[in-house]
């Protein structure tokens, strides 16, 4: 009985740790997206010079990790999934909060199946919609791979593979690779 309690307690702790990691990874990714993805920002091109203003923009975050939006890269996901050194996150609900990062408003938004991306962005007056595939961790839980689907229009954006490394209690983005282009 005691053993069972210990196991239960450990699994709760581990589950919390996982959820905590997941939230941290999500925060890191959102931070990166809001600060690094240039198309979110207002650009001025003039006489071979470029000015970038961080003006207020809106990013919509799909609150569920899903594979539906990643059909076009299913072979890459399968490849990682088939790697014995990685395991896939079972948790499917994210908790993006309405917040402002780097002058960009982050807002949870459930992407409907029956609307074109251009219409969604126009209706929501948003600049981009972001969706995440289920997180993939290595066995040591020190590395995470995140597929991020980022659409700034029907023909703008792409799917990116973020590789994050755990540094102490925090997660840092180690590499970003473009997988598809819209």
């Amino acid at each position: 009985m005691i053993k069972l309690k210990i196991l239960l307690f450990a699994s709760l702790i581990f589950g919390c740790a996982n959820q905590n990691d997941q939230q941290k990874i999500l925060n890191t990714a959102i931070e990166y997206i809001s600060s690094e993805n240039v198309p979110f920002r207002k650009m001025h091109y003039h006489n071979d010079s470029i000015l970038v203003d961080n003006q207020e923009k809106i990013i919509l975050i799909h609150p569920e990790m899903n594979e539906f939006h990643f059909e076009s890269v299913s072979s890459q996901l399968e490849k990682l999934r088939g790697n014995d050194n990685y395991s896939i996150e079972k948790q499917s609900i994210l908790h993006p909060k309405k917040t402002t990062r780097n002058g960009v408003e982050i807002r949870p938004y459930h992407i409907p199946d029956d609307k074109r991306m251009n219409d969604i962005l126009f209706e929501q007056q948003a600049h981009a919609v972001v969706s995440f595939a289920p997180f993939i961790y290595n066995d040591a839980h020190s590395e995470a791979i995140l597929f991020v689907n980022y659409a700034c229009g029907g023909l703008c954006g792409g799917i990116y593979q973020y590789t994050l490394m755990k540094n102490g209690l925090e997660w840092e983005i180690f590499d970003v690779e473009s997988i598809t282009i819209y």
Partner: protein
Amino acid sequence: MYVLYTRARKQKNRATFEQESYTAFQNFAVRVLCGLRKFINLHKSKKMNLKTSLKTVVSTFFELKLPVLGLLMLLFCITACNEHEVLPPSDSPAESLESFEALNLSAEEADFFSDEKINEIPHLKQAVEQLDHNGRGRFFFARSVQKTKRFVRNMNHQMEHKYIPHITQNVGQPVWLASYVAKLGGDMMTFVPLVPADEAIINGVLVYQKTDDGDTSYSLTTREQMASVETETDDQNYPLLVQMFYEFDKQLFNAGTEAYLDWGVKPVIELEDCSTFPEYTCLGRMTELPNRVITLFDTPVFDSTPLPDFGTEFPCYYICDAGCTADIYASGIADEEEIAWINGNCSYADVIDDFLADNDEPEIGQILLDAAILGYLTATESKRLANAIDVYLNDPDNANTDAACVVQEALEDISSIGEVPLALMCEMSTDLMAAKFSADYETYSSCNPVDIQLIRTSIINCQNSNGNCLCPSFDCILNDLMIVEDIIIKDESFETCERVNCVYDVLFDSMNELFCSTIGNFMESTIFDLEFRVANIIGDGQTTYDEENDIIILTISNFFCDESESTDLNVAATILHEGIHAELRRYLMDRGYDANNVEIYPEVWDNYLVEWYAENSGTTNDIHHAIMVRVDNYVDLIAEALWQVNDQVFTIEHYKHLAWDGLRGYSEQYADDTYGINTSFYPLHQELMASNPTLGCDQ
């Protein structure tokens, strides 16, 4: 962007980058070791390595009671020795071998450069095993052969990956281990035999020379070319090549002299002011040397079984001087590898040089050069063709035709069918051409699947050059889509989405300029296929790359399968937009670039915005879109294509709102207008949409 047969000349290929960065490394190493050069030279003579030499110097300083200098030297030694170990001298055989193997070779290249490949040729395996590669020359041998491999690889990239397939299909597999390498002071020369898989015979000899000054020359001579010499030849290297064919044939297959006696008596006509040879490249008589390295080139080291009646003079290796290259260089058509080829093929160079001297037609000069390098024509045939083109160009009736297209089409078909098209025969009605090629219209009407791809490419070319070329097989090929489906694959998901499939077919049948120069280019690419899919994606379309299968995948949203929620023009715009992404990727990968590496883009597309994104954004997504807007003006091409497929309803401006989709953020004008509703195109777009535009796929 119109890129079909004529290759982009001004863009660096990956191999060049590697060479440049390699050279930069070498320069760096030289600078680091500069202060030590004196010691290195000093101790080289004593056969001591750098570390030992420096240790000696440091200990000497200490012995001389100069500890500060000793410590400084020690620090210098640690740094320099480490650098020295990381960056060995360029002539280190180990480094050379590793650097070549480390190159990102395609499977085709890996096969071609492999020494293991000969194990698949039963009659060759034993012969090569008997060759002696030991001895003190083996490092020089390995290094020289690797340099030759590197050159051929660069050449392959330069020729858009057509060169190696050409050699393997038409000549044979190189037997690198059976090469002869000549050591000529600081210069090197490599002779490589080529053997077909199904015949015990030397079918070609490849020669590569690199001088101490960095000058190079290169030639690949086939048995067919040698045998086609009728009574005399103007190839100055012919006697040397006869000896080499014979020597390799004797060593690998125990061949006798019979076949070569006939070759050996053909006189060589000297070219006027065109070829020259350094004294030391004159070959002695041949013998079976151990370790395949010829160290005394101007003395009779080959003398076991010389060809009888071959004359008393040693054959020499000739390179071309300015007399047969000046106009080629001036035209700017030759890059580094091609200059090497020209240097080693004086008779061809002479023909092309003379043609360019008489005609300001660099594009045709380039086609002639390509055809010569790919072995489509012998030097004599090149001369006949150049004469025929000369006559054609001087005919006032042909003043308004696209001569380069005519020649290009002719040569492509010569390469694939061995005949010249009827169109060319009509337009270039010269006796020389008629005598050489008997045109046979029926050849085309039969729709031989093997030939269709090349003919189809010609058709696309012709479409793009305002129909100046006649294409007798056009209808025939359009009805036979089998070959196209092999290259452009439709996934089941695509075919079952009838609406999207239908729009694709409309675009295909329209053969408009944008479609031909993007998706159409995959019909020509021998490396990459294009696959169309339909899937649940959150955007309208995506382009991705399946590295394992060398397929570029173009995915269209399944949202478009429902005809009620979008127009056919939306689907067409998406296919065209994604087709451009696919073409940009193919264009880079066909030239050996890593299309995922953002750093290479500014090298290929010289634009400040492309450069800025490469440095700041780090995504190919941004860079592709910047190229589409800032470099090649694809927006206008998309709008024009949509206007064309929609039966030219309204004006091209009416289609620009659709064409700008996904690209506004990359323009100065519309960067702040995410949805494009404040542009002058938006009211026109609304007018267009109000007319319920259709391509006949939404019913």
